[in-house]
């Protein structure tokens, strides 16, 4: 299953990167979201999948799934959320100010 998950995460990266390479801001931001999903899935897969119970101590259970990747993902999810929300607002403001949401028209040569 890990291989399937790796492929799935790879596909998330792939579609994410493809979106990132597009011109329209919405697609680009969607791309980053997909990539972060892919990244989180990779982290999860890197711990061993399904080897034991959820990492909540319970009497009589010796085997737990690897808790560390989960903790890392949790931190990463929250950070991604922060960045994504900033990015959304930034995208909104930048496209409003510059009057376009097409990155190719946001090349710019004036630096104020």
């Amino acid at each position: 299953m890990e291989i399937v998950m790796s492929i799935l995460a790879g596909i998330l990266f792939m579609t994410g990167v493809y979106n990132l390479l597009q011109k329209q801001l919405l697609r680009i931001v969607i791309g980053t979201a997909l990539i972060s999903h892919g990244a989180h899935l990779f982290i999860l897969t890197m711990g061993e999948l399904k080897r034991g119970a959820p990492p909540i101590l319970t009497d009589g259970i010796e085997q737990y799934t690897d808790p560390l990747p989960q903790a890392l993902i949790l931190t990463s999810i929250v950070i991604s959320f922060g960045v994504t929300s900033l990015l959304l607002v930034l995208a909104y403001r930048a496209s409003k100010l510059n009057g376009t949401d097409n990155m190719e028209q946001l090349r710019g040569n004036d630096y104020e």
Partner: protein
Amino acid sequence: MSNLLALTIIWPLIAGIIAAFLNNKKRVVRPLAQLFAVISSALAILVLYLVSANGTIVLETGSYEAPFGIVLVGDLLSVTLVVTTNIIATACVFYAPKSLTEKQESFFFYSFFFMLITGVSGAFLTGDIFNLFVFFEVLLMASYGLIVLGNGKAQLRESLKYVLINLFSSMLFVTTVAFLYSVVGSVNMAQVAQRVQEVEQQGVLTTIAILFFFVFATKAAVFPLYYWLPRPYVVPNPVVSALFGALLTKVGIYSILRIFTLIFVGELDLTHTIFIYLAAFTMIFGVIGALSTHNVKLIVAYNIIPAVGFMLMGIGIFSEVSISGTIYYLINDMIIKAALFLLVGVIAYVAGTSDLRKMSGLIHHYPALGWLMFISTLVLAGIPPFSGFVGKLLLIQGGLANEEIMVVIASLVSSLLILFSMIRIFVRGFWGEKTKSPPHPERSKSAGRMIWPIAFLLSLTVLLGVGAEWFYPPVEWMGEYLMDPQMYIDSVIKE
């Protein structure tokens, strides 16, 4: 005693939070921020003193023994860089009130500023690779806050690219950490180093190493990943550019330095040879960029890139001398880049433009500014006896000792072109016909105040050059220390 180490990270965090609550009271927040920055520097210097007297300080946060908890490792290198960061930041915070509009100041400039210091210091100090990611995010997020400050049209446009590329590399970073964790089962850098060494960096580990390299190289602006750098560094306020130029790329270089001396040293022929080639290209393309423009801010921004090449060259050559050279160059470059961005900020301010073709004869009205520009040009080009020379000399020595002739020649050529790119500002902007009055006479007064922090930073570079005898021996020791990863490992993991 070792808790002091955490204070160098926590103190700016607290300062940032306090500043956030005082955002509308600029009368209070300004002196307070300056005071906090000075205290922060003093703290860092105190820690540096302790480290140089007693050796590496390892702080196991929450008292969980390494490698299981997060450790902060205050060795001579990381603490020295924290001190440098704080000193630069202090110079910037004194420059800020003259440079920023009041609006910008009240929209959390000081909070972002202190958070940036937190992130940078944390990245230098942490001994945990996932924690490094977190500190990267702190400093990046603070930099996002700083770069959009002002909300200009071009500013937001460039910020967007900056954020997107950094976001991508952060995601790659965290994924790569996961890969590494899968192979060696640890995120503690000392333990990772130990384990990678144990299995002789076999199998997929070198591939993971290269991914790490690209993650940091994107932040550090190494060829061919630096495209995002120049323009976003030009659009924000000069004080923000100075912080970025001095600190952000350097964190990337520091990470490469750390990771590729401590952890991934098993495939030197492959990885470090790649570095040498990339270093040569970085120097040449970077300086070509600097020559391509007439915008003074952009000239300085592009000049970040060849400097990164110099430092990468030292890592690639991988000898005690060259690593010391990289460290010396790193410290020098942090200071001089901050000074230069502040400087071109003033120049653009008094000239009313940052287009070199529209400037002339400024030296007749602003002699002090002109000479500061001249000296910083020399520092940047590595003319002795300024500090740029010491690092360059060591790098060339290291390169020639290992017979890496091509990269040495590339470094000499790029030194010349760096000088050319910078001296144009002096020759075309400062020399020339004397005009009756400066372009914006009303700005002379505040410009006069703005040059003090710059003069302070430049005097440091002179001190680092002329007084190299005081500073070089510890750096030389750092070179030896980095070349022997066991020292780091032993200080963290006590069996």
